[in-house]
């Protein structure tokens, strides 16, 4: 009798949420969701278009991608709307977001929520405290954004031109000395540029656990001293002697393709395979991560406080967490970015969709990627970028 009671109780507890969801679905029908997402990647743009086709067919929710050159453009727009007193009917319905942008929006009260934990498909996520879907760059998510794709820091290179890439960040110094002018990283004002520095920070700092707390005047110098020593040794042998840098990782990928440098950087383990399929890198392009693993984080979607089509945005956020959607996204022919779902929470049928996905020689196996290193607290990135600019911008 008791299990039945519990089941009935839990049903009773669950049904309001389900009823809420039905209300959300009803309200969402007919809405058009303006999804503000970085528009520099044709495959991501195509995936978002596919998402819109699916949600329109299933839920009557259209998706329009607002292609950004920088995620912060959307943040600025929401601030401008708040400055103008526009507390509803805002122009941004959903933002592809994480890290510092999320932190500043959450702190400024610019986000709608909590909503993510109430999405029906949130059950596929590992939301236990400290898991990567519940902490974003050490900022607690608390339901203010919903996961959609996994990011892992990787280097891309041409295996025909560079048969033996360096295996640690420290080893890049010797490699660059032997190959002057062949290494660079994106401008540090760009998040990929700062990630390059953070990867070195985690590897070189005496006590990596410090990085999980905020950076302070007391701990910053000691923690970063080895990074500056490393960078001072590296810099003279960087491309253009480290006086200028590519604007972002796509520009650097183009330089890799043009043969101007020998490494690209990416937050997508499938980037080499994807770029080969698109004709953007030679067939021999591969990815590697430094020994000891690389920084990983999750890309989220968040809904601004004044979003005009909030319900529609929730429906899209939920759709993104469907196992079938995540598998489609992980398909190398589509996007190739790894699923954010907890494999342990998938049933056999759902797991089979993932197992059936095609592969590519340029696609690393999950075990080749080593352990995922946690993003340092967001304050480290801010301070690291500032300190870098002070040291090397004349």
């Amino acid at each position, binding site marked *: 009798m008791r299990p039945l009671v519990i089941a009935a109780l839990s049903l009773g507890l669950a049904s309001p949420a389900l009823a809420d969801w039905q209300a959300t679905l009803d309200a969402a029908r007919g809405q058009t969701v303006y999804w503000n997402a970085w528009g520099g990647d*044709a495959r991501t743009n195509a995936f978002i278009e596919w998402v819109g086709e699916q949600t329109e067919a299933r839920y009557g929710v259209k998706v329009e991608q607002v*292609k950004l050159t920088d995620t912060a453009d959307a*943040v*600025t*727009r929401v601030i401008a709307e708040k400055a103008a007193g526009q507390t509803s009917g805002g122009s941004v319905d959903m933002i592809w977001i994480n890290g510092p942008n999320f932190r500043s929006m959450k702190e400024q009260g610019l986000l709608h929520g909590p909503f993510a934990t109430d999405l029906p498909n949130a059950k596929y996520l590992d939301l236990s405290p400290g898991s990567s879907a519940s902490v974003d760059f050490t900022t607690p998510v608390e339901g203010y954004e919903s996961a959609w794709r996994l990011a892992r820091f990787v280097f891309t290179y041409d295996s025909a031109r560079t048969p033996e890439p360096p295996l640690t960040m420290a080893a890049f110094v010797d490699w660059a000395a032997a190959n002057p002018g062949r290494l660079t990283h994106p401008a540090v004002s760009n998040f990929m540029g700062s990630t390059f520095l953070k990867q070195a920070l985690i590897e070189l700092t005496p006590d990596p656990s410090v990085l999980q707390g905020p950076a302070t005047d007391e701990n910053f110098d000691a923690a970063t001293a080895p990074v500056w020593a490393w960078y001072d040794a590296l810099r003279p042998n960087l491309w253009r002697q480290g006086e200028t840098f590519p604007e972002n990782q796509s520009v650097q990928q183009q330089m890799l393709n043009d043969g101007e440098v020998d490494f690209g950087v990416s937050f997508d383990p499938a980037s080499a395979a994807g770029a080969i399929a698109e004709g953007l890198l030679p067939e021999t392009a591969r990815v590697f991560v430094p020994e000891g693993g690389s920084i990983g984080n999750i890309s989220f979607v968040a809904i601004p406080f004044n979003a005009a089509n909030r319900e529609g945005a929730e429906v899209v956020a939920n759709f993104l967490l469907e196992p079938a959607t995540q598998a489609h996204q992980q398909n190398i022919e589509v996007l190739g970015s790894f699923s954010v779902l907890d494999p342990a929470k998938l049933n056999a049928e759902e797991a089979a969709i993932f197992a059936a996905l095609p592969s590519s020689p340029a696609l690393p196996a999950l075990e080749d990627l080593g352990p995922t290193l946690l993003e340092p607290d967001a304050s480290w990135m*801010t301070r690291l970028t500032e300190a870098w600019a002070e040291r090397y911008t004349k």
Partner: protein
Amino acid sequence: MKPQGRALRAAVLILLMGGFVLPILAGFGQTAGAAFGYLPVLGADSLSLEPWRALFALPGMATSLRLTLVTGIGSTLLALVLAAGFCAFAHGRMTASGMARLLTPFLAAPHAALAIGLAFLLAPSGWIARLVSPWATGWDRPPDLATVNDQWGMALILGLLIKEVPFLLLVMGSALGQLPLRQHLAAGRALGYARGVTWVKVILPQVYPLIRLPIFVTLAFALSVVDMAIILGPSNPPTLSVATTRWFSAPDIALILPASAAALLQIGLVLGAVGLWICAERILRRVGLWWLRRGGRGHPTEPGLWLASTATATLMAMGLAALCALLLWSFAWRWSYPDALPQSWSTKFWLSPGKGWGEALKTTLLLGLASTALSLTLAIAWLEGEDQAGTPRAGWATALIYLPLLTPQLGFLYGLNVVFLQIGISGGMGAVIWAQMLFVFPYVMIALSDPWRALDPRQIRAAASLGASPARRLFAVKLPMLLRPLLTAAAIGFAVSVAQYLPTLFMGAGRIATLTTEAVTLSSGSDRRITGTYATLQAALPFLAYGVAFLIPAILYRNRRGLLGTPT
């Protein structure tokens, strides 16, 4: 002043004040507030100099400033010298329409597209390097040379020159039309002055006052350009305008305050540079008078003219090569170093307009046609108002027209967006058309004013004496006679509309995707093949508009030679 003229003028003026000047001032006010620490939404609500302190404490600020001044003033000065030299050289060797045909591609090609093409042309792994490698250079890998994004801003200056020299040639051409050139040259020759000397000593001093404002526009533009500076300029630190755009969009939103201060500083820079320029004018006038009175006949300017013309021709050749490179890329699949041509071809990017360039093309056309038609109507109303009132244009009216062109866009666009949001019109086509008109109208007005005034007044008097009402005189006499300049002005306006990046982005809330916003966004993803497709379309549209502006009068007036109006 006659009553009907007054009513028309008042209406136009109210429209301009309410629609142009007020929004710019309001936007400027918002930016200025933030620059002095007033932005309540961020919890900043007391006036302070803190944003300025923060701005000047930002690393690389001094270098950014120097870089901006060197590229801005340097490119304008060089462009003026080259254009004057080329003008002197080409005059008499080339017909006015031949010159116009030569200039059209450069005037039509948007800055961003040209910059992307040029970056590919010049890069160490670029087209020029590919053509001579490795057989002549021995570079089996691209060399580590700073041919683009160099820290001195040379590549940026070069890119600016390719756009500015043709623009100045165009305005010089129309200014020359107002001078009795043949007589001056003949008199100069008779007095024993060499051709180049006559140009420098007699013609230029007369042309200069007529092209002064366009030169200031060029200067203001070069000092505040964003898209071209991102693509061709250095990145660490970049020019002030690029740095400001970066701070406006930094994840740390508190940077909006110093960014606003930087936007104000940008306006200060433009004002300062114009002031500096005017000082230089004064000095040159003194020195020039002394030089003129000395009466030297010397020949040494001739090689200078050759040099300037060769440099201009080289610039144009590079510009054309850059545009060709884009077209080629749009049909490429793989094209890697050191191949001179793509290894594999694809029409994938052209054959899938779908939601990509098809939509953007439609939006661009719609915006261009609407903002051009409205601006043209307004310009005609203004000029007709002047005619009816019978008064020449006051200095403040000219200043009003030029205001949007002389104010750096960053200085007021963010604030303007807030104002548009407050009145609830941001994010729609209407807001974008409005914002684009701020820049389209001045160019239409500038292009139309001179031909309008040059219209033979006897024709209108004849019509009036036959009893034609002012409206009939306008529609049956003036406008048909002015068809060609009207269409040219429209083509220029359309080209300006197509090229607008920041206004479309800010006022459209990012939802209005045009060829230009897409091309700039995609260039951050740096797939040259897609960028090539967009940039080709982006350059082709204005080119078509100029073509139409040439063709329609030629067809309509094929049997009325006087109306084809080749300017003398």
